[in-house]
């Protein structure tokens, strides 16, 4: 019986999606009524547009399966820590800066955005991956960082690099305040509170009058934007700044993960009550995780403002939050190399797909949703989970 379940479920889904796919509504407004019309082309177009993504998904799934069959030769243990090789940081930085000199304008802007997503994914990984708190409104903190920069720079001289700590601090403080009332509750409340918070922030930004510029947003003043230094163009400087910040975020979070703090978070994620009984200040640790995570989003927000030269409420959308969440989950909860890879993959692949198959643009979120469900059902620890994380999970199994 068991092997028939997938077949049955496929049939069920086919039946349930059929009315919406293969028929279209035809309004008859002379009498204010509607009719149904059979439209096979409509349904076929849906599958045709989705085909490239499905093929790519099948390929990726096959590769993952194949990887599990191969003998394990992992290099993660060797490159993970920056502490053992402190000289690696400037070296990696130089290597990162180099391609900035050769990439074209489009490539540079894509690379800068990818670096921004790396910061976001690594930051969100602190709460979702390490401390096990689901955050659904992460883009709110991106917006808070960007807006705190944009609002302040209207009154005082505040170049983007000086705004970075400001954005970090504002976001972290607000994150701490939001998390305060709900951390004593079960963790899943915070997920929805953060979602509601993001909705409220967007509404505030849109209705904020002159302070937030409403729907139009705020333009960053000339002197405060990211601009060229010496022989480097502004885009090259933006890339260098973004790459440096991304590397710094990765290094900092990596160090924290290996510290007492990181181990405390992992303990809380695995069993909150047990962790509390062992003397870990659970509420304080969770607050710290939330604030730190929000702070990284604020950092990315300032970078975003300095780079795109204006901020508007579209920074703070549910789509953005889900995109970052999908990066963290796909990369592997709690795995820092995984988050980096997830961020780069999930930003670049859809961008390229959009260039090659313009019809696919609208299918982005549908595909992210499918990825989330599929990854959760097949490997809940994520696709590129770290070795330590895998051990953490497997050890707990009876």
């Amino acid at each position: 019986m068991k092997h028939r379940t997938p077949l049955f479920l496929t049939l069920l889904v086919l039946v349930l999606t059929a009315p919406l796919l293969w028929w279209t509504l035809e309004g008859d407004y002379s009498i204010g009524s509607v009719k149904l019309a059979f439209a096979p082309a409509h349904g076929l177009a849906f599958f045709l547009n989705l085909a490239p993504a499905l093929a790519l998904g099948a390929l990726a799934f096959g590769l993952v399966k194949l990887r599990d069959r191969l003998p394990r030769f992992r290099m993660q243990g060797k490159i993970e820590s920056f502490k053992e090789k402190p000289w690696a940081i400037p070296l990696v930085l130089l290597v990162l800066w180099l391609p900035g000199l050769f990439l074209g304008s489009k490539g540079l802007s894509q690379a800068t955005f990818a670096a921004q997503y790396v910061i976001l994914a690594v930051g969100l990984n602190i709460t979702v991956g390490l401390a096990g708190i689901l955050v659904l409104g992460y883009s709110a903190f991106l917006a808070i960082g960007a807006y705190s920069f944009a609002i302040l720079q209207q009154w005082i001289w505040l170049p983007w690099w000086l705004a970075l700590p400001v954005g970090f601090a504002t976001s972290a403080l607000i994150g701490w305040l939001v998390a305060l009332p709900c951390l004593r509750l079960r963790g899943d409340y915070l997920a929805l509170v953060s979602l509601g918070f993001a909705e409220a922030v967007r509404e505030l930004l849109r209705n904020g009058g002159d302070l937030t510029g409403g729907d139009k947003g705020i333009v960053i003043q000339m002197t405060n934007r990211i601009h060229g230094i010496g022989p480097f163009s502004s885009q090259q400087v933006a890339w260098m700044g973004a790459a440096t910040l991304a590397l710094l975020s990765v290094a900092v979070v990596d160090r924290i993960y290996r510290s007492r703090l990181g181990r405390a978070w992992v303990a809380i994620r695995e069993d909150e009550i047990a962790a509390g009984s062992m003397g870990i200040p659970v509420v304080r640790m969770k607050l710290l995780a939330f604030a730190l995570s929000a702070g990284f989003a604020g950092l990315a927000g300032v970078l975003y403002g300095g780079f795109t030269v204006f901020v508007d409420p579209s920074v703070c959308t549910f789509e953005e939050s889900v995109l970052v969440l999908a990066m963290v989950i796909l990369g592997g909860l709690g795995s820092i190399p995984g988050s980096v890879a997830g961020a780069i993959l999930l930003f670049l692949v859809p961008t390229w797909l959009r260039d090659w198959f313009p019809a696919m643009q609208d299918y982005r979120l549908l595909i992210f949703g499918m990825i989330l469900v599929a990854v959760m059902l097949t490997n809940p620890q994520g696709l590129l989970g770290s070795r330590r994380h895998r051990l953490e999970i497997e050890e707990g199994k009876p």
Partner: protein
Amino acid sequence: MVQVLINGLARGSVYALVALGYTMVYGILGMINFAHGEVFMLGMFGVVFALGLCTTLWGTSLALNLVVALVLAVLFAAGWGWANERIAYRKLRGANMLAPLSSAIGLSIVLQNFVMLAVTKGKVDFPHFYSDAFTKTHWTVLGARITLLQLTMLGTTAILCLGLWWLIQKTRIGISLRATSQDRLAASLMGIRVDRSIAGTFILGSALAAVAGAMVGMYQGVLAFDSGYSVGLKAFTAAVLGGIGNIPGAVLGGFLIGISEDLTSYWIGSDWKQTSTFVILILVLILRPRGLLGERVSDKV
């Protein structure tokens, strides 16, 4: 002022019906069925498609078409609720809390975008041939206008809530649902088919959401693929306000959220509805985390 209260009550009755779905699933599984708002939205579209089907098959006839469409939409939404449980939640029942929640979010994104791509990116008008019959008839009570539709919404919600209460308290199905929510293992040892009662919870909640969807479709006159998102968020807030897992609490919370929303529009401005809902959620969590009617739950180790 009376008008604002009436509008708020009508709106709240919808939130109450949707909140019931959240609270029942939470009561039985301890997880937030994030895709519930989307089932509500599918119910809305189900009604319009079913009305179209009726018109195509035998023409426009007010009462017959509405009844048939409602039944079809309820079946459609219930099917989706069941499919959701089978696909995205059943396998993850024993897993860490994060896994079912993430897959529920994924599912809700998939459903929302599926409707966006398969039906339309824009809005669909509810066929006003049917809704006019309900919105054009109205009475004046204490200087306020109450339409037949608002009355229907309140009446239907009252009947469905009583029906649900009867089902849960007085029937064998209800006993198995309650037993499953108390202790899944013990229930299964007593010969209760746990899988079935969980699937039943999803089906019941989805059916209620479909009825709510039909009424909102008529009330607002338009439906869109993202209609389920904000209603879902507010209904969830309602469930938390009343005490999640508690069925009378969900109904009370639904009405309170509905009224508060219309009061916000009346006093402050309709641009601030979302913020007022959020402020209420935060205040409840600070002042009375277990909700208005919720019991204190201790953590199980």
